[in-house]
């Protein structure tokens, strides 16, 4: 098999968040198979820390491009849409024919929340003539909050395994199989839903107390 290169786009405005943690694992797993990977941060291009025109080389050198992104208001963040709009208008030619896949992760546990984000990635790929290899959805990314997957015990192991299978697929140019999604899906049993809400609200009140007993329900824009 020829050596392939994956260009991973970290779509988060937080360079050390969960999207980065996922990107980092994908990079390591990719290198373990003798292939190569590079992570770039969309936010660096938005802020002008990196020059957009330098992307051209990076894209030409890559065989596969991956978007790893947090869910902001139910889809890709402003930064990521801005980035994809730039790619379409300036680099369609460089991207044509390459493979593309995406990982969306959100705060809430429900994986269906990421559907609009993953579809948007697919429509982008189709618009520039890339081959869409599929998307993975992770629910509960806020709980991980940037922690490295190898430090998360069983939960982390399953996600790593899910990503490993997905990489095997994409490196062979195949669609990501449903096995990967099954491995990374965390189901919260119904009976634990109320205790979870109580736990999360306990933390909300605790944080408010720590911030000088602040009224987090303030209707600031009506004052």
């Amino acid at each position: 098999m020829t050596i392939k290169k994956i260009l991973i786009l970290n779509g988060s405005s937080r360079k050390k968040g969960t999207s980065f943690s996922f990107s980092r694992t994908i990079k390591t797993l990719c290198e373990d198979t003798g292939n190569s990977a590079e992570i770039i941060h969309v936010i660096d291009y938005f802020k002008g820390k990196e020059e957009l025109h330098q992307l051209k080389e990076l894209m030409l050198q890559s065989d596969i491009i991956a978007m790893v992104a947090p869910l902001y208001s139910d889809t890709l963040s402003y930064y990521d849409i801005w980035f994809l709009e730039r790619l379409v208008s300036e680099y369609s030619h460089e991207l044509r024919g390459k493979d593309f896949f995406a990982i969306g992760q959100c705060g809430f546990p429900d994986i269906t929340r990421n559907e609009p984000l993953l579809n948007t990635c697919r429509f982008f790929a189709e618009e520039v003539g890339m081959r869409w290899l599929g998307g993975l959805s992770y629910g509960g990314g806020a709980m991980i909050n940037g922690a490295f997957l190898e430090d998360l015990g069983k939960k982390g192991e399953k996600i790593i395994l899910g990503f490993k299978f997905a990489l095997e697929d994409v490196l062979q140019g195949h669609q990501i199989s449903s096995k990967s999604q099954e491995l990374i899906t965390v189901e919260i049993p119904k009976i634990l839903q109320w205790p979870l809400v109580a736990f999360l609200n306990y933390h909300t009140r605790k944080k408010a107390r720590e911030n000088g007993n602040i009224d987090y329900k303030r209707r600031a824009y009506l004052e």
Partner: protein
Amino acid sequence: MSIVILDGMERENNTSSMFERVLKENLEKTFYFKLRDMNIAPCSCCESCSYTTPGKCVVNDDAHEILKTIAKSDTVILLSPIRFGGYSSCLKKIVDKFMLLILPSYRLKKGYLLHPARYGKKILIGIGVAEDVLKEQEENFEKLVEHNAHNLQYPYKTHILRSSEEIEKAEDEVNSILKVVHEG
């Protein structure tokens, strides 16, 4: 009855002009925001709006004026070209700040975890302008509006305008929107 329209179209176009005219003719309290002409900083996820300055963004930009108007209104209309089956970046800049319209606490509704609304219930209307996009993209746009409405816990409606359609047809759509607004 007051209505806020967040226009995420990137340049002058007939649809926006028609919307602005018909809405202003029919509703006294129409607040029309042409986002492309405004200075809105994107959300940097600093989390200050949760516990430091609850419900308020710490960045000084035009988003405050928009959010203040939304807080006082009954209806929010999102207008955008359908971009990759969703919103244009021009509209998304303000939609990312909708986090300010919800609380950092949690509730459970029909098995879904949600953040309670900060300013009560409003009507959300998403209007996608389709230029040569596939049906699938239109459906994803509608799904996105539905998800936004679900998270905000607002009732919602979606409309797809095909730019090839005559402006009268679009006017009919606006009138049906006005009907929804009047009926609450």
